[in-house]
């Protein structure tokens, strides 16, 4: 199986995972978080699961798992797991674009390290 095909599937699972995280984060942000007791936690979770965005996120999370299982059936676990670290890059980009969070220089430097690492392991597993 072509390593670039596997890599593009890992990109898809990472993207789906990122979409899930962004939906979850915007849903949690829309609720006022005030967790002091178990009762608070339960009511927080209950309000959370009534939000449609949480369910959209959940669907993407399930899709991400399906693609991930397919990747694992074809690729080595050590390669796939390491390459999956690219979701850190997508989350940095997504937080900047959709959540308007600040992404500092340090984070971009870390992102470059991850990219170099992924290129190295992809080269090694070609």
């Amino acid at each position, binding site marked *: 199986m072509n390593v670039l095909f596997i890599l593009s599937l890992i990109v898809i699972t990472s993207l789906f995972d990122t979409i899930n995280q962004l939906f979850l984060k915007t849903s949690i942000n829309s609720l006022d978080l005030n*967790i002091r007791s178990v009762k608070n936690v339960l009511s927080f979770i209950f309000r959370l699961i009534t939000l449609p965005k949480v369910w959209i996120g959940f669907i993407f999370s399930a899709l991400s798992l*399906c693609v*991930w*299982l*397919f*990747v*694992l*059936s*074809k690729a*080595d*676990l*050590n*390669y796939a*797991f*390491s390459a999956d*670290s690219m979701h*850190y890059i997508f989350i*940095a980009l997504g937080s900047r674009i959709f959540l308007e969070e600040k992404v*500092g220089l*340090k*984070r971009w*430097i*870390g*992102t*470059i*390290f*991850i*990219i*170099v*690492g*992924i*290129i*190295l*392991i992809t*080269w*090694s*597993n070609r």
Partner: protein
Amino acid sequence: MSKNRITLKLLLFLISTDLLETFTQYCFKKSALAESSLLITNPRDAFIFLKSICFSSFLWLGLGSVFITFIIWSTILSKIDLSVAVPICSFSYILVPLVSIFFLKEQVTLLDWTGILFILIGVIVVSMSTKQQKIIIT
């Protein structure tokens, strides 16, 4: 109670998320391995692939492990910042290749380890950049 105080209990939680994450990936790999001979060329094949994986006990073991990890992880994050928790939990990037070598008989070359080292540094730098925090270890 001050934030970012890493107690022994918290450290054990952090280590257990590393181990559980590795265990999860091992289970997923095991469940997928059983169907690795299946060629998927159309959506129907993909459906058959997923259906047969659903009957794998490893898949459900992995999903159970995901659930437990999620609960432990939420507990950790209520006590310390993400920027402190993620670097300690990145050891799975080393544990997973080790498990791959010993239990799945995969080959991990020197070039692979170099790449993994870069990824590990990257993940630590990215997560530490969320906030400048002092870490107090008691």
